[in-house]
């Protein structure tokens, strides 16, 4: 027990002293999230541009009223309104002269909806002038629809991808320790292999928890991601997911002799998963012939499980399939990792 705790503590110390490892574990997922989140994550709000030609009480009243509508930009034009409309610089043109009001709109859909807004505004201006009370006055409520914004999809996807990449890397790190002779030296002590590997896994689990907190917090604070599920129930899924990818990494470490070979093998494993396992877009959007392949990718079960909990609030009890799939990967790769485990490079 003392050996296990000391190993975990020293692993963490080493982690915080290794800038490259820190970068890949924490900074990279954050940067990735910011990059993709900023590019595609936020749904643009309403924005429209109305041009007004003319002057007088009507024009100033209209400009004032339209100014109160969020996302609406109003410009008073001296001339050239039709040209601006045709060129797409404005969505709707209102021309007022001698109590004659013309409204010009185009066949663009924004123009159609903006013209309705302008007409509605003019209508309420009329009622105000007539001092007529409003008979029908609906109160507007806005309800957020869960799972519709891209960030809701992306955040759990990036979390799954991060767990995969860092889990695989942490598993293959055994190669470095082996080629440096550290494993051989440790083997000369009474320490059991199980405790050594167990401490490695534990360290990576702690890292995974921090990664999850970091990614979900970033998504919430910056991109208005609102998780609905019980976030504590993420922990068992994080653990089984991390285990699955670490055992794949340990297996690779057993097969490959150098870190370079391991990196190549890791890419063979991780690249298809990045693009086919529902990280950036749903599996349902994949071409039909690839879908069966996507079904056997371990990451697919991790992302779908994470997404189910975070976005849809699914309880753990209903994620049996995802758990079973990841547990199977862990058992099979764990068996292979043990079978191929080597303390040192083969004698030449």
């Amino acid at each position, binding site marked *: 027990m003392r050996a296990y705790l000391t190993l975990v503590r020293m692993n963490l*110390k080493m982690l915080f002293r290794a800038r490259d490892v820190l970068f890949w574990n924490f900074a990279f997922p954050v940067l990735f999230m910011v990059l993709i989140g900023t590019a595609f994550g936020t749904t643009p709000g309403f924005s429209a541009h109305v041009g007004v030609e003319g002057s007088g009480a009507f024009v100033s009243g209209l400009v004032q009223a339209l100014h109160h509508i969020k996302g609406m930009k109003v410009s008073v034009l001296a001339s050239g309104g039709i040209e601006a409309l045709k060129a797409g610089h404005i969505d709707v043109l209102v021309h007022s002269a001698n109590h004659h009001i013309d409204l010009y709109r185009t066949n663009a859909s924004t123009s159609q909806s903006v013209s309705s807004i302008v007409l509605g505004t003019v209508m309420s201006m009329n009622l105000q002038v007539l001092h007529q009370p409003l008979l029908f006055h609906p109160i507007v409520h806005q309800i957020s629809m869960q799972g519709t914004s891209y960030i809701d999809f992306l955040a759990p996807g990036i979390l799954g991808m991060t767990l995969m990449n860092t889990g695989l890397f942490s598993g293959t790190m055994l190669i470095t320790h082996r080629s440096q*002779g550290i494993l*051989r030296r440790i*083997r*000369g*002590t009474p320490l059991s292999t199980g405790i050594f590997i167990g401490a490695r896994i534990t360290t990576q689990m702690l890292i995974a928890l921090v990664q999850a907190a970091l990614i979900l917090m970033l998504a919430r604070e910056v991109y208005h991601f609102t998780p609905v599920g019980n976030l504590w129930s993420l922990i068992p899924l994080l653990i089984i997911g991390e285990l699955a990818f670490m055992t794949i990494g340990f297996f690779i470490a057993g097969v490959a002799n150098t870190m370079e070979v391991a990196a190549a093998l890791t890419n063979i494993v991780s690249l298809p998963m990045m693009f086919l396992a529902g990280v950036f877009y749903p599996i349902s959007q994949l071409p039909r012939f690839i879908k069966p392949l996507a079904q056997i990718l371990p990451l697919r079960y991790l992302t779908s499980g994470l997404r189910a909990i975070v976005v849809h609030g699914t309880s753990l009890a209903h994620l049996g399939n995802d758990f079973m799939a990841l547990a199977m990967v862990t058992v099979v790769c764990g068996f292979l990792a043990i079978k191929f485990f080597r303390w040192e490079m083969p004698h030449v």
Partner: protein
Amino acid sequence: MAPVIEVINAVKEFNGVRALDGLSLTVNSGQVVAILGPNGAGKTTLLEILEGLQRLNRGEARVLGYDVGRESREVKERIGISLQSTAFFDRLSVEETAELFGSFFSHPQDRRALLRNTGLWELRGRRVSRLSGGQKQRVALALALINDPRLIFLDEPTTGLDPAARREIWSLVERIQQEGRTVILTTHYMEEAAYLADNVVIMDQGKILAEGTVAQLLRDYADQQTVILDGEGLDYLTEPPWNFVEDNGQLFWHVPNLSDQLDSLLSSIRSRGGKIHHLVVQEATLEDVFLRLTGRRLVS
């Protein structure tokens, strides 16, 4: 007292090549034993068998009374090892490394006292990656002592070190012996074996060719001195009965009981009108023992 190490007819093969070929060895408590041999002699394999890192194909090996094959955990708990070219975790400090390795044993010794005794106290906060080769080797030696072992294996503790660093390691090894521990070390430096060892074991091709104190080995296998001459009119010495060997303008004469023959050599040269510029008499070394036993030099 039972021997600390007992090896009987040990055979170890790697892919059909015999690294240990029916080797037997007994080591008693408190000795420093140097295993001397060229690369590939099987020194490291022998050590790894005794450390529980490799298993014998045939034969028997007991360390501190335990069978290393079946009771390797018991053995590992009680021995100290320093491997050939070991690395430790680069990003841990010396003291953290000692703490980590100490945690692997049931009864580690106090690491602060250990660091003081091995001259590492000043370096305790330094990262392993920033240590020199000699300092790293001292860390390796300190870690070999972390469990306060009665028996210590050092595999080529000074290979690749400069002479000053080598001296430091030597004094550390002497100190370890003074504490009553048994030390088994491998080396291919004969001066190291001569300086440190109570007993020298000469190995080649997986077998022990000879063992004993340095004095015994010299007496048994290299009871001769070498006369090195250089001068004028001495060429006749390469012929019988003198049989000198010429090499690079110098004449070499390997001769037992030189004191009996020096007189007749000098009077012979005088009578022939030869002239001596330099005369050197070299004592035999373990190198000569090795040459005699194998027909090859230790360091090529």
